[in-house]
């Protein structure tokens, strides 16, 4: 196959995936490394890539210390209770103390932030969210990244990280291919910051057929941020902690502004409030410490997202669906009606299309809600990702090994969905994490930690063969059959994706089984994943576009395997409403108030899992 090999050498900071995390990293790296070579490798076009491609109507993480609104530790406590205790509080505190400085810069760059006409402060949607006209959020942050980077390689899908051969467990760059030209790209770099985003389409989506792209997280979020790290032998954390979202039915339009700003609320099919009646039994499952509606009411402590899902799911299972969002009251106010619609147009246009198609005008009709299939990601109300070092002035010994946001592989950093234990970072927090990782990466180089990296031609050649194998498989076996896509020698990426989604759904707690799994199911699931992996060796790609889909599938598969391993390891139901371990239906703080950490041995493919202590941020007067 006549594809050229294009080598970009002597890179200091390579950013793999420039969404919100990656653009933050590329931007900031220039300040700390003014003479350093900064390169971006991005699967799409950074002007419209990642989860923020169509824009956002809110920045969901902003402290407002400037207006005396919140302190960083307030946000840490919020994320802690929302995630039922399981967060990395050093990383969260660090993100929260810096995040406002990112947001203030966005405003200076031209991002329209709404202001409260009375106070002059940013218009709050909720305690942590501020409202923006964010259709161009992504192109604006992309401009900043472009100003800082020496080179941006758009349309290069990164498939593997390169490892240093002179020192064990040290990074040496990354490789991938251009999804248009087919060329093989080699990036030799002293450090790599992975910002390749979370994973959609791992569990079978509710949408079918033509609508299968209608997922909550973007269909191009292929779990690369996880697979690249897992394959490099980096430790991962909290990978069992997938998220399920309550959203407008079919369109998956966001509900945040509806609840918080428009003050709409939910009711069951009979028009009744349903949530509170599920709380007593739920309290028995999780304990009063995690669910105490009275205390929540008094102190404005939120009811964790997963527990609210649990009430939703239980009510529907009890036969009293559908759950409706009561919009008819709020939408009588023309201003609120406008906010309601613009909210979709600014971040989930498809919901507007759907309401137009079905003649649902929320002013006259309360729209239906649904709970989504699970997603694996680390910056929304969930914290999947890599086990990273925290900052030296906050992190306890177990959480600190030299450089902020560095993983357990030397020179490998992460931001956004890639970093584990940091839920509720959202767009602004992901960007901030990118900045933190970039500063630390420059320091790592300046400290002389990246000297003498060797990446042999053999390693580069080996990866090349691996990458193009699906094209070869297609070429060799295609003409054995007359026509069509059914071939005894291979499967294509769509067939493989369907199989992955079906087995994750059925064995790991997807929608068709009401988010339920157990040890037996997970063990079967792992076996099926192993066999699927063998078949993925025989995946066929008809063209370069399909080759990209083949690698996305391989990344999704590796991510799924790690999710399955973690779900098997944590023998409790920590997040009812996200998933249930039917064989351990209770939250078990005695044994499981810990973070789960895994490592896959790159040589043998074996996983080891361990428990890591969960440190909490405690004020002096709380100390017992």
């Amino acid at each position, binding site marked *: 196959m006549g594809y050229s090999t294009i080598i970009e050498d002597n890179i200091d900071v390579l950013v793999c995936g420039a969404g919100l995390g990656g653009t933050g990293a590329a931007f900031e790296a220039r300040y700390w490394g003014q003479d350093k070579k900064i390169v971006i490798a991005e699967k799409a076009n950074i002007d419209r890539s990642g989860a923020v491609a169509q824009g956002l109507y809110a920045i969901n993480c902003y402290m407002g210390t400037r207006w005396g609104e919140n302190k960083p530790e307030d946000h840490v406590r919020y994320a802690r209770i929302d995630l039922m205790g399981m967060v990395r509080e050093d990383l969260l505190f660090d993100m929260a103390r810096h995040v406002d400085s990112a947001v203030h810069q966005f405003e200076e760059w031209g991002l329209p932030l709404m202001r409260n006409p009375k106070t002059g402060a940013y218009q709050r949607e909720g305690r942590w969210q501020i409202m923006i006209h964010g259709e161009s959020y992504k192109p604006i942050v992309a401009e900043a990244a472009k*100003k800082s980077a020496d080179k941006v390689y758009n349309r290069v899908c990164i498939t593997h990280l390169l490892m240093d051969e002179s020192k064990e467990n040290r990074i040496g760059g990354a490789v991938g291919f251009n999804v248009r030209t087919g060329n093989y790209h080699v990036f030799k770099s002293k450090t790599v910051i992975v910002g390749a985003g979370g994973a959609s389409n791992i569990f079978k989506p509710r949408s079918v057929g033509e609508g299968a792209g209608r997922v909550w997280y973007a*269909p191009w979020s292929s779990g690369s941020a996880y697979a690249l790290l897992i394959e490099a032998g980096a430790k991962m954390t909290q990978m069992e902690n997938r998220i399920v979202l309550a959203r407008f039915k079919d369109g998956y339009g966001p509900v945040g502004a509806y609840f918080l700003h428009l003050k709409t609320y939910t009711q069951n099919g009979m028009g009744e409030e349903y949530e509170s009646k599920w709380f007593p039994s739920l309290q028995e499952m999780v304990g009063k410490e995690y669910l105490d509606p009275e205390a929540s009411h008094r102190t404005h402590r939120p009811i964790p997202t997963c527990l609210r899902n649990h009430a939703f799911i239980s009510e529907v299972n009890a036969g009293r669906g559908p759950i409706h969002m009561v919009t008819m009251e709020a939408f009588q106010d023309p201003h609120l009606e406008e906010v309601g619609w613009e909210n979709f147009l600014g971040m989930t246009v498809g919901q507007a299309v759907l309401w*137009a198609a079905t003649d649902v005008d929320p002013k006259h009709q309360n729209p239906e809600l649904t709970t989504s299939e699970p997603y694996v990601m680390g910056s929304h109300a969930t914290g999947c990702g890599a086990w990273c070092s925290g900052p030296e002035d906050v992190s306890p010994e177990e959480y600190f090994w030299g450089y902020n946001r560095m993983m357990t592989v030397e020179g490998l950093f992460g931001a956004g969905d890639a970093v584990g234990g940091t839920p509720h970072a959202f767009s602004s927090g992901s960007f901030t994490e990118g900045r933190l990782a970039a500063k630390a990466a420059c320091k790592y180089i300046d400290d002389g930690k990246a000297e003498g990296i060797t990446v042999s031609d053999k390693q580069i050649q080996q990866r090349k063969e691996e990458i193009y194998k699906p094209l070869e498989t297609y070429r060799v076996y295609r003409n054995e059959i007359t026509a069509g896509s059914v071939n005894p020698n291979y499967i294509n990426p769509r067939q493989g994706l369907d199989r992955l989604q079906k087995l994750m759904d059925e064995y790991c707690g997807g929608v068709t089984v009401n988010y339920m799994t157990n040890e037996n199911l997970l063990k079967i699931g792992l076996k099926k994943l192993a066999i699927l992996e063998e078949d993925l060796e025989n995946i066929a790609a008809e063209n370069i576009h399909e080759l990209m889909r083949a690698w996305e599938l391989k990344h999704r598969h590796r991510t799924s395997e790690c999710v399955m391993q973690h779900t098997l390891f944590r023998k409790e139901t920590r997040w009812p409403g996200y998933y249930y371990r039917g064989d351990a239906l209770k939250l078990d703080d005695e044994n499981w108030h810990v973070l789960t950490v895994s490592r896959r041995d790159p040589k043998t493919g074996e996983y080891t899992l361990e428990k890591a202590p969960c440190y909490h941020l405690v004020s002096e007067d709380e100390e017992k």
Partner: protein
Amino acid sequence: MPTFVYMTRCDGCGHCVDICPSDIMHIDTVTRRAYNIEPNMCWECYSCVKACPHHAIDVRGYADFAPLGHSVRVIREEEKGTIAWRIKFRDGTEKNFLSPITTKPWGQGIPQLADQAAPSKEMRDSQLLFNEPKYIRLDDGDIHTLESNGLKMKAGVYY
């Protein structure tokens, strides 16, 4: 809601191909015009619709749950800094919306960090990022630390 392209409006310029995050807008080799090669991987993100200079791309709601007879059209203008939407319902109802997309001439508010004064060693050894501490609170306050906020990291069960 997957995209489709009107034959008479598309001139094959490729802007949509260049921008689609899902890599599914491709130019057909026979007609030399763009089309969506994989509708079930379309997020109806409208990136291509906004990018098309000839408004040749439109969206028809997913066949499996969206009835025919609706439209959501958009015009995004960087020079004006606005985006305009027109929603048409199946029953003919129409709604229009106009929002700002930027407050500055495009791209000009962003600093070139290569030209900034280089950070001092003290700054490098601190926890501060570019423009900090000033940009955290826009006053003279310093960055928050465990000490300044009277906090400790403790292992164990706290709620």
